[in-house]
């Protein structure tokens, strides 16, 4: 389905938040112009589109910018509502639960694992890894409740919460490669381990996941900039 010719996405290839939005657009079969932004040297178009936070992703539809990846995913679901499948659940209560866990992922899980990437000392890294594992343990319980025995958080098909967590998976592989740490592990979080496998194979989303070596490269750049 065409993005009506006037749909742009400002992004960073390895940002999980950008990947999240790309997955949503891919699920809806929407075409768009992707513009890679150098976040270390922010461009004019980014500063104009997101003057408040100066961050990616920014979706620009008919010239109007939309910021914050979860808000963008909801927007995409609403605008291309007719295009199956639906990303958000239909039931208000299930929507609330999905939003709750998505917020948890961004507020608790993300700072923990990115903290591990940026950690200056082994001690700090171990602490951050520990926090990441604790958050994933919570998400394991959440999966048991939300999925109701089905394949995904959203049920039979990939949904909002699957995207919210799934966009982080390639970074978990990156951390495995960089630090030899297994974040989603069959022993500790068996449900998430098998979910991650299924998610990785889902046609709608796998084309937008970047190669792990690109993420490793970016992580090294970040560490050079932020770790002294």
């Amino acid at each position: 389905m065409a993005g009506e010719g006037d749909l742009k996405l400002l992004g960073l290839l390895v940002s999980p938040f950008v990947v999240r939005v790309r997955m949503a657009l891919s699920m809806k079969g929407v075409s768009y112009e992707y513009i890679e932004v150098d976040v270390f040297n922010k461009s004019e178009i980014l500063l104009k589109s997101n003057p408040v936070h100066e961050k990616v992703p920014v979706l620009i539809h008919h010239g109007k910018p939309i910021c914050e990846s979860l808000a963008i995913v909801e927007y995409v679901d609403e605008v291309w509502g007719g295009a199956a499948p639906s990303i958000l659940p239909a039931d208000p209560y299930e929507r609330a639960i999905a939003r709750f866990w998505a917020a948890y992922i961004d507020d608790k899980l993300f700072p923990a694992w990115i903290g591990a990437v940026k950690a200056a000392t082994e001690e700090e890294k171990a602490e951050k890894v520990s926090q990441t594992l604790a958050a994933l343990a919570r998400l394991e319980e959440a999966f048991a409740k939300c999925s109701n025995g089905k394949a995904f958080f959203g049920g039979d098909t990939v949904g909002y919460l699957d995207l919210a967590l799934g966009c982080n998976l390639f970074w978990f592989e990156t951390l495995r490669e960089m630090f030899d740490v297994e974040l989603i592990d069959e022993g500790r979080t068996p449900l998430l381990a098998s979910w991650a496998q299924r998610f990785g194979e889902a046609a709608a989303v796998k084309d937008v996941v970047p190669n792990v070596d690109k993420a490793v490269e970016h992580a090294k750049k970040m560490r050079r900039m932020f770790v002294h």
Partner: protein
Amino acid sequence: MDHQQEKVQLLGMWASPYVYKVKWALSIKGVEYEYVEEDLRNKSSQLLEHNTVHKKVPVLVYNGKPVAESDIIVEFIDDAWSHRGGRILPEDPHERAMARFWARFVPDKLSPPIWKWFTTAGGEEQDAAREAAMEQLRVLEEELANGGNEFFAGDSVGLVDLSLGALAYVIPMYEEIIGERLVTEEMFPSLYAWMGRFLAAPPVKDHLPPMEELKLSGSLPRATPGRSRRTAANSPVAPSSRRHCCRPSLRWQRNQPPKVVGGGGRRDTLHGR
């Protein structure tokens, strides 16, 4: 959703601005509910069961099923009672996305510098904090002025108004306590006018915390004597509670300070977001 036999409970705490946000949303929709006051120093088993992740208020319990986090509760209220009351989120998808964006602006960008201004003890550091807070207020002022509406998204109280709402009573309270203005009519005409309209709006005006109790509840900063530009004699706050602000008293412990604009992060130990 079937509203025939619904039972709605709100677990809250009298001083929490996040709880008021939910009360205002319920009021917009005209929902009847049972309010349960939680003692946050002695959390009920019901609260712990319903919010195992964050253990905080507010929690809305809909037919026994809990929803936590005030922003999420507000969206749930808008979804669940979409058939009545005013719209809390706009209809148009782009406007909805903007509403969600501005709702996040408050805890992420605005509240931290305001809290810093309120709790910094005078001098250059406080001036810098005040300037940082004003910079964010200017962003909001522009947004409100450009919209040209009574409230952020239109003629009635909506998501962004609810998100900002508590600041309408908290900022004047802080200004009174430390004897310094932050939001004046001259500097922020739109915001100033919005504050008055918000506090007088039907869903809000009968659901505000008791201001005197709030002032005396220990919301004072851990102040140094030079902090306030007023003398003890004409301070609005009783000298005895000022004396207790630096060490816990029974009263301070009972009435937890409303961490309205939350410290470094969006969450503190007592209140949900």
